[in-house]
């Protein structure tokens, strides 16, 4: 038979589609035709596959080879189709038996010497395969870490094509060990006990971790804004299996699994530089739409240092994901939705020279410059930020203080206790975090104590807060109440929430 067929996956965003890779070896002049809207990397597959097969001791057919990737209308990209094309070709040549290779998804790029190289997006591809009823897959050995997360499937890692062919022909292969989810070691290096003083900012970080509230830190250079932000993932609860799968899938598509362990349960921490473009922030690309920083920070923390220095519109491009928890990117090749549920932490100096804090004696900026600087953070964006705290420069009293502050492990325990409190309350609701309580529910079911409501209403009457601000404060108050295990936010909880939102005068 001169026809061969195998399965692979084409990714469009996070969604995968099963692709039939068919190869026909026809009479005619030797040649190679690739059909089915391939991109450049895929068109180059011919030379990689040919060298890989010949160098693995296989015979390249001296005939006309026609490769068809079906469905033909879908754009396909990337070198991950090398392996399925090679397998279909060998099936068409009749040199490997067909019974073992059917109903297997193949993913992998071929090196010229026959090794199987890692590709992007293996985990989302396997998830798609599983949803389509395919239960086994061959992946590059280097991608086994993420592939093993799909424990429902039989995933066979292969180092090179010779080993793979030996398995297909004889059924013999080396046993692979199971991999388990692990907690990253690296979070030990960043501990909250390193942060001296800064009780206000510490508390705000804890509240932020409990309720998923966004946070703005304002302070002079060297006060510890970055230190605090970097330590936030360490006090977030570990990711559940489903969350970990989601995060790893996103990082897999972006090609970032070299820095992040695929099995990690630690919340991601993404800190793009303030020169980042809008596309870098929300995702994009003309051929393949890749996730941006806000999707990589999904289930974790997106930290933007020197936020007022960001380009025009970069921060405001985050408004949609902040509101909906996902980002839809439309390009001519199609439109893709990536999840983007993150805690946003903005850090800013109080003025261009950075010294306008405390008594502001060292500040060299004009009053106009000072006013202009923070107004670069737009009103609609600031409205979505529930916690705004000043990080004061440390005095010698705090620095001389020998005792270490509370450690990340202790804070994390408090955060987890508070979250489980909230989870029990929201057991019949569609949301899990305080920051996600809809306004309607706030007005009806989730009201603070009467005294607290009176306080909020009087602030509303004095036009100190808007109606939306009132709801934001109520959400924060719930997180503070959860931390103190109050069944309902008390007057004190609500006043603290009010101070956290309105304390900084911007």
């Amino acid at each position, binding site marked *: 038979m001169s026809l061969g067929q195998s399965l692979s996956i084409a990714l469009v965003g996070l969604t995968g589609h099963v692709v039939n890779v068919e190869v026909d070896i026809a*009479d*005619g*002049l*030797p040649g190679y035709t690739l059909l089915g809207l391939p991109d450049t990397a895929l068109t180059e597959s011919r030379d990689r596959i040919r060298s890989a097969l010949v160098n693995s001791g296989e015979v390249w057919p*001296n005939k006309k080879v026609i490769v068809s990737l079906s469905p033909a209308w879908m754009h396909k990209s990337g070198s991950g189709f090398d392996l399925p094309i090679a397998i279909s070709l060998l099936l068409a040549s009749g040199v490997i038996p067909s019974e073992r290779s059917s109903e297997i998804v193949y993913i992998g790029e071929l090196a010229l010497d026959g090794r199987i190289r890692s590709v992007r997006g293996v985990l989302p591809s396997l998830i798609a395969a599983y949803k389509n009823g395919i239960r086994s897959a061959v992946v590059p050995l280097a991608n086994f870490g993420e592939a093993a997360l799909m424990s429902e499937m039989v995933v066979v890692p292969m180092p090179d094509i010779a080993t793979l062919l030996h398995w297909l022909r004889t059924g013999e292969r080396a046993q692979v060990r199971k991999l388990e989810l692990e907690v990253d070691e690296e979070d030990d290096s960043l501990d909250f006990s390193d942060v001296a003083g800064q009780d206000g900012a510490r508390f705000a970080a804890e509240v932020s971790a409990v309720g998923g509230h966004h946070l703005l830190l304002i302070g002079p250079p060297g006060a510890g804004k970055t230190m605090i932000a970097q330590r936030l993932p360490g006090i977030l609860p570990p990711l559940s299996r489903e969350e970990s799968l989601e995060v790893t899938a996103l990082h897999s598509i972006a090609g970032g699994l070299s820095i992040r362990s695929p099995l990690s349960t630690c919340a991601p921490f993404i800190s793009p530089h303030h020169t980042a473009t809008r596309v870098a922030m929300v995702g994009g690309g003309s051929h393949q739409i890749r996730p941006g920083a806000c999707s990589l920070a999904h289930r974790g923390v997106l930290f933007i240092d020197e936020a007022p220095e960001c380009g025009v519109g970069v921060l405001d491009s985050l408004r949609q994901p902040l509101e909906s928890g996902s980002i839809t990117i439309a390009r001519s090749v199609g439109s893709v939705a990536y999840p983007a549920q993150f805690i946003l932490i903005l850090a800013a100096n109080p003025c261009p020279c950075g010294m306008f804090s405390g008594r502001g004696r060292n500040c060299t900026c004009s009053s106009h410059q000072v006013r202009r600087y923070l107004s670069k953070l737009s009103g609609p964006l600031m409205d979505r930020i529930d916690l705004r705290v000043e990080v004061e420069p440390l005095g010698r009293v705090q620095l001389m203080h020998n005792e270490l502050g509370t450690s990340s492990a202790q804070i994390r325990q408090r955060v987890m206790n508070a979250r489980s409190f909230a989870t029990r309350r929201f057991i019949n609701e569609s949301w899990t975090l305080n920051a996600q309580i809809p306004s309607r529910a706030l007005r009806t079911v989730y009201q603070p104590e009467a005294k607290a409501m009176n306080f909020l209403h009087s602030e509303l009457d004095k036009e100190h807060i808007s109606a939306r601000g009132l709801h934001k404060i109520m959400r924060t108050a719930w997180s503070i109440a959860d931390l103190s295990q109050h069944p309902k936010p008390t007057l004190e909880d609500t006043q603290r929430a009010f101070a956290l939102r309105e304390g900084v005068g911007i």
Partner: protein
Amino acid sequence: MADTRKTDTRNIALGKFGEDVIANFLQQRDVQILERNWRIKEGEIDIVALYPNGTIAFVEVKTRSSLAFGQPLEGISPIKMARLQRLSLAWRACHSRRWRSFQIDCAGVLIDKNGSHIIEYRANVS
């Protein structure tokens, strides 16, 4: 390029040998050879053959003495095929007789050191 002429002569002899082999091969299969090395300004058709069923075949022969540069048939590039197509039209213009149908065939001849050869014949390519 000191020995260009020497290599050229050798290659011409090799090509001639391959064409002879294919001509014999076709005749053994009751294919009539109408013309050998039909040449005009634009190029040359190696063999024009007439199949028993009345089809005219324009045959391009590629001969190689080793696999160092790949299979003989791989040496027939798309450019050569396009030229052969144009030449076949020219041949038909020069021969006003009506033929049943036309096709282009390609033949590869691989000769090894002790003189034996392997033929690969692909009928009606393009």
